């Protein structure tokens, strides 16, 4: 699989993301934000984590207007798969490619730790290698991860299987981590080809670094 990893000024997870996909045997290419096209044969676009444009105004609000994002939007509209991790999730919500928005964490702290997550839906191109109800251990590192969505849209997303992950305890019971509506940690769009999550699966690729649960998450795209 050929994976494009976007790079904005202030992105800092692009190399971890490349490492993760290359460890799984995929070819990766870094794409600078000023590019107006994606290379031929790309099967997945990853918008990695970091602090694009210094998080000025709102996290992701400026990156969404970068030239490369037009190409990413067109790619997604043609059914291409897009994954946004952390700042990438914020960028995709700001771009209107994913529903909802990410607010400042309820406790106003930057939260950086390993966190257990419960898989809510696996009937999609991302989490199909994970079991429904399974608990994964994945690091989180964010200040603006407090997912907001209005009640009506939330009900539609739930009915359509668009809630992917929720913060949970080790038994899979929802826990409050950052104030997200119903503890949501990850979602997808209606057509289930654009995915976003605050946790960092690319940082959970080695047992020696605390967890390799990210492997099964990212392997989902191989199907």
């Amino acid at each position, binding site marked *: 699989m050929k994976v494009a990893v976007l790079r904005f000024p202030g992105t800092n997870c692009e190399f971890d993301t490349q490492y993760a996909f290359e460890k799984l045997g995929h070819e990766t290419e870094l794409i600078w934000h000023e590019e107006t096209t994606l290379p031929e044969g790309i099967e997945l676009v990853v918008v990695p984590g970091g602090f694009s444009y210094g998080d000025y*105004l*709102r996290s992701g*609000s*400026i990156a969404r*207007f970068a030239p490369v994002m037009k190409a990413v939007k067109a790619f997604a509209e043609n059914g291409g798969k897009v994954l946004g991790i952390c700042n990438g999730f914020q960028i995709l*919500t*700001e771009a209107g490619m994913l529903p*909802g*928005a990410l*607010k*400042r*964490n*309820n*406790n*106003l702290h930057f939260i950086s730790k390993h966190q257990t997550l419960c898989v809510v839906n696996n009937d999609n191109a991302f989490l199909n290698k994970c079991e429904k109800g399974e608990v994964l251990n994945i690091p989180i590192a964010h200040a603006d991860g*407090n997912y*907001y969505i209005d009640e009506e849209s939330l009900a539609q997303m739930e009915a359509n299987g668009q809630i992917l992950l929720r913060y949970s305890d080790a038994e899979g019971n929802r826990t409050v981590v950052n*104030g997200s509506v119903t503890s949501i940690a990850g979602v997808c769009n209606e057509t289930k080809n654009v995915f976003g999550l605050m946790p960092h699966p690319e940082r959970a690729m080695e047992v020696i670094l605390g967890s390799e649960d990210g492997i099964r998450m990212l392997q989902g795209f191989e199907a």
Partner: protein
Amino acid sequence: MKVIVNVFLKEGVLDPQGKAAHHALHSLGFEGVNEVRIGKQIVLDIDASDKAEAEAKVKEMAETLLANTVIEDYTIEIA
């Protein structure tokens, strides 16, 4: 022309920073504070021939970039 855009989280969307400031005011002994909401003020200096043109221009800027209307409301004041 000077234009001021005030951006606030929508009513009903919890404002964590406002909550924290409210709590701090209470801890400092300030009484009778019912609510604190924290927003942003964006001051623009723009070219426009009249107020209506300025307002129309800034409204488009607010909808496009300055506010995220999923969670935020905004007001426009022409100085």
